[in-house]
């Protein structure tokens, strides 16, 4: 946003704004302020605001009252930077005479603008054109405020519709879309339920007839009719019940299947950031457990709620028609049940959330430890792992006990009130029948409550009251399942509403040759530390580029950005002149072959694993790919050949074989760009040479990026990029870098010495 043409990131009070303008005029005359950054921390780390205002030659910082704290002249600057600390950061600079100036302090909410300010000052100090620096500042501000005004999520581009806020409505409303395809079947079930309920309502009336008319008058003819009617009603009820239960079960299965499929499909398209912050156990729990809870609730909602409601209304009408005074007595427990239900709902929801969290911990523990069973055995930690699991389930059980205290007490309390209702009917209704009979016997016209009640009416009433309390009980405990489902729905919606991987260029599939450009690319995983800073490089089509550097230098991150696993970086990455964010995501990734250090194989045959990226590949194509990857022969030697089943993570073949399968899988995709991320790091030298020969066959004519610790694997590279602490330290041909005697030269020297020592040690062992 702007205020009087000046870029600002937050609203500034007019008084403070005028003071900043005045201070600027006093210090720097008529220079125009380009931007003002409003911080969220004071210099002494209290929450508050301070202001950093920059012209095209100077900057000043004022405190919350508008009083000057610091001023700086860009021409005097030696360097400027954002110093990232834990939970906060400082914009600081150092002048040529060695003076350090602390300009602004802020949390990570403002860090991106702090980075921009540091770059702005530095670029002007280094003589870059002011117009360019101002354009960059403008872009940074636009990006900083490109967030959804409602939810604060970052938008794909300024003015874009927020993915998180699209079609937000009531949770139940959102989930009802899964019920919609089953609506016809559910309506049929509903009609059947109403028929069954209607049939069940006939019973008490027929019982009353039996008690009042058949038995006192010894009417065997009527007895036969009533019994036959009851028998017919029972048969009809059973048939209706069987059909309804089956159809309802099928609908429930369809609902949960659709919901699960949708959640799983959505989970496939979520960004890597989601998975960085969410445990896989928790995601699995949502797809399996929570979906079932929601399905059960949806069925309850669409069926029983309607049936129970009509049952309740029907019975109330019948009871009031039979005897309104007794009907009123029946309603006495209702207020207690309703109030209790509301209190219960409020109390139980936090417990359901806690129970879920603890259960998610149990699932996470399982997903962590079961696949790592080899490590557990290798370190003999079976007992410790077992007791760890017991602790986790113990913590879950504790919360479950607390939850059970409330959730088990409530239905019993409801039953108590309902039984009290029965007691009232029996006592008042019973007394009424007795007084009615006594009055009839004595010929007294004055009766209890006015009017007579027969034994049959009382028996029928008791039956209706029992039937009436069923829906009351249902609605009282319905809150329980509603709260449980609400808690599950929140978690499922957490996935359904999460940001998908941005794919702004869907449908844009330009021909790719393989030229890659990184333009001023900076990236941070969690804003606390810049993983890549201002990376600039150009890779020509067909180049074989070795990316080297120590662990944590940012090599894999660079590749992750090229693969578009993360799209929220500063700067641009271009392939053949096209910004990769604007290319169809699926098409783009299909053009890049990615071979990782840990090659993952699915629980399927070798053939299907190779054809994973191209399911319609012919047998010949798969064979050719396997041959290029030096894998065909070892596959042929396997007893089951291409039908060999691979276990989880490729168990059944060796590490080197698995890696060659992974390369074959990539070959089949015929990608334009190849990325090898430490592809030979975890295999022995002999296997490495086999893999290396496979790689060399594959890379011919393709742009190739190879991350490698073993520099010997880069012998085919015509360009080397040396990364250090997220920055490009050196770049050029291997010869150029060796001649420069910099970091690459040192790395080569260290590895040569290490290899020499290793080979000498081997020779010694052989000669012994």
């Amino acid at each position: 946003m702007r205020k009087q043409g000046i870029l600002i990131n937050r609203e500034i009070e007019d008084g403070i704004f005028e003071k900043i303008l005045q201070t600027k005029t006093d210090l720097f005359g008529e220079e125009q302020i380009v931007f003002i950054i409003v911080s969220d921390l004071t210099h002494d780390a209290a929450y508050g605001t301070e202001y950093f205002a920059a012209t095209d030659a100077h900057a000043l910082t004022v405190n919350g009252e508008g009083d000057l704290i610091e001023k700086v002249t860009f021409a005097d600057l030696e360097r400027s930077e954002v110093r990232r600390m834990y939970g906060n950061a400082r914009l600081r600079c150092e002048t040529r005479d060695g003076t350090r100036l602390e300009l602004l302090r802020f949390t990570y909410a403002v860090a991106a603008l702090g980075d921009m300010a540091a770059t702005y000052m530095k670029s002007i100090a280094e003589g870059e054109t002011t117009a360019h620096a101002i354009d960059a500042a403008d872009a940074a501000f636009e990006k900083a405020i490109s967030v959804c005004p409602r939810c604060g999520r970052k938008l794909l581009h300024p003015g874009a519709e927020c993915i998180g806020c699209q079609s937000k409505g009531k949770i139940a409303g959102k989930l009802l879309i899964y019920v919609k395809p089953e609506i016809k079947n559910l309506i049929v079930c509903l009609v059947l339920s109403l028929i069954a309920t209607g049939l069940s309502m006939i019973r008490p009336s027929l019982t009353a007839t039996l008690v009042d008319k058949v038995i006192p008058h010894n009417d065997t003819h009527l007895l036969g009719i009533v019994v036959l009617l009851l028998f017919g009603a029972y048969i009809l009820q059973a048939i209706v019940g069987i059909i309804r239960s089956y159809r309802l079960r099928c609908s429930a299965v369809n609902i949960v299947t659709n919901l699960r499929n949708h959640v799983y499909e959505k989970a496939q398209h979520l960004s890597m950031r989601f998975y960085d912050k969410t445990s896989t156990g928790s995601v699995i729990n949502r797809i399996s457990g929570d979906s079932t809870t929601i399905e059960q609730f949806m069925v309850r909602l669409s069926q029983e709620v309607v049936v129970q409601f009509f049952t309740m209304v029907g019975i109330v009408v019948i009871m009031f028609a039979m005897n309104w005074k007794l009907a009123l007595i029946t309603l006495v427990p209702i207020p207690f049940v309703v109030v209790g239900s509301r209190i219960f709902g409020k109390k139980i929801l936090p417990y359901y959330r806690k129970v879920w969290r603890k259960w998610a911990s149990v699932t996470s523990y399982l997903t962590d430890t079961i696949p790592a069973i080899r490590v557990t055995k290798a370190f003999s930690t079976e007992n410790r792992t077992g007791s760890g699991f017991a602790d986790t389930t113990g913590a879950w059980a504790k919360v479950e006990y607390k939850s059970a205290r409330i959730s088990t007490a409530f239905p019993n309390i409801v039953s108590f009130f309902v039984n009290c209702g029965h007691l009232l009917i029996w006592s008042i209704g019973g007394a009424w029948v007795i007084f009615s009979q006594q009055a009839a016997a004595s010929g007294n016209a004055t009766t209890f409550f006015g009017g007579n009640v027969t034994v049959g009416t009382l028996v029928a009433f008791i039956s209706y009251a029992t039937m009436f309390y069923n829906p009351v009980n249902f609605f009282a405990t319905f809150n329980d399942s509603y709260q449980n489902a609400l808690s599950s729905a929140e978690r499922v919606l957490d996935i359904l509403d999460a940001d998908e991987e941005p794919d702004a260029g869907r449908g844009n599939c330009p021909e790719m040759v393989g030229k890659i450009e990184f333009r001023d690319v900076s990236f941070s995983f969690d804003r606390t530390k810049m993983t890549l800073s201002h990376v600039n490089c150009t890779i020509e089509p067909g180049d074989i580029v070795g990316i080297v550097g120590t662990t944590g230098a940012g090599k894999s991150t660079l590749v992750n950005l090229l693969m578009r696993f993360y799209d929220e970086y500063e700067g641009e990455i271009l392939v053949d002149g096209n910004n990769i964010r604007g290319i169809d995501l699926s098409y783009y990734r299909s053009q890049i072959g990615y071979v990782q250090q840990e090659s993952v194989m699915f629980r399927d045959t070798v053939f299907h694993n190779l054809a994973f990226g191209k399911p319609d590949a012919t047998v010949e194509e798969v064979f050719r790919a396997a041959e290029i990857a030096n894998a065909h022969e070892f596959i042929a030697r396997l007893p089951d050949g291409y039908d060999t089943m691979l276990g989880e993570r490729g168990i059944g073949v060796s590490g080197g074989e698995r890696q060659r399968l992974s390369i074959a899988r990539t070959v089949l995709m015929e990608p334009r760009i190849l990325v090898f991320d430490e592809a030979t790091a975890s295999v022995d030298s002999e296997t490495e040479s086999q893999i290396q020969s496979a790689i060399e066959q594959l890379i011919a004519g393709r742009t190739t990026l190879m991350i490698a610790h073993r520099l010997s694997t880069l012998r085919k590279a015509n360009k080397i990029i040396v990364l250090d602490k997220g920055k490009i330290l050196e770049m050029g041909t291997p010869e150029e870098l060796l001649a420069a005697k910099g970091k690459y030269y040192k790395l080569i020297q260290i590895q040569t010495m290490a290899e020499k020592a290793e080979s000498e040690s081997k020779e010694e062992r052989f000669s012994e």
Partner: protein
Amino acid sequence: MARNYITGDIVNRRADMARVDLDCGDLHEKDLSPRRLFPITDPDHYISFLNADGHEVAVIADIHVLSRQSRAVLEDVMKEYYLIPKILEVLEIDERFGMNKWTVRTERGVQSFQIRSRHSDIKPFADGRVLIRDSNDNRYEIEDWRTHSKASKKWLNTQI
């Protein structure tokens, strides 16, 4: 490589806001950044001193062995570096559009922030401690939620 534990007292002074100079026996190093090796679980033990290249020069196993003066300097510098505001009271949690906006009172003043997911950004511990990460990756800590006011607990109960 053997870790260089500082066992005796050190005479240090503040080089700038977040760095110290170390003079301890034969060790004379300037511009070192102290880093807690257990910033969440044990902030007063195992403080590592890193030089400008990020290499560890020395470690203090327990901050309490230092003289009052040295300790004050070190604590001051770490206070400067580590910002984990302690939430003293939750004033409001506004849940809309899937995002939770918290307004809290901390020892550094009142602050509002957003939580993306209550399931992955809030970590309660058995001893009542709660760690919170907001949508900007800032961290907050509740030392013991059980000691919070009734109103604060009511808000927290909806989240943890």
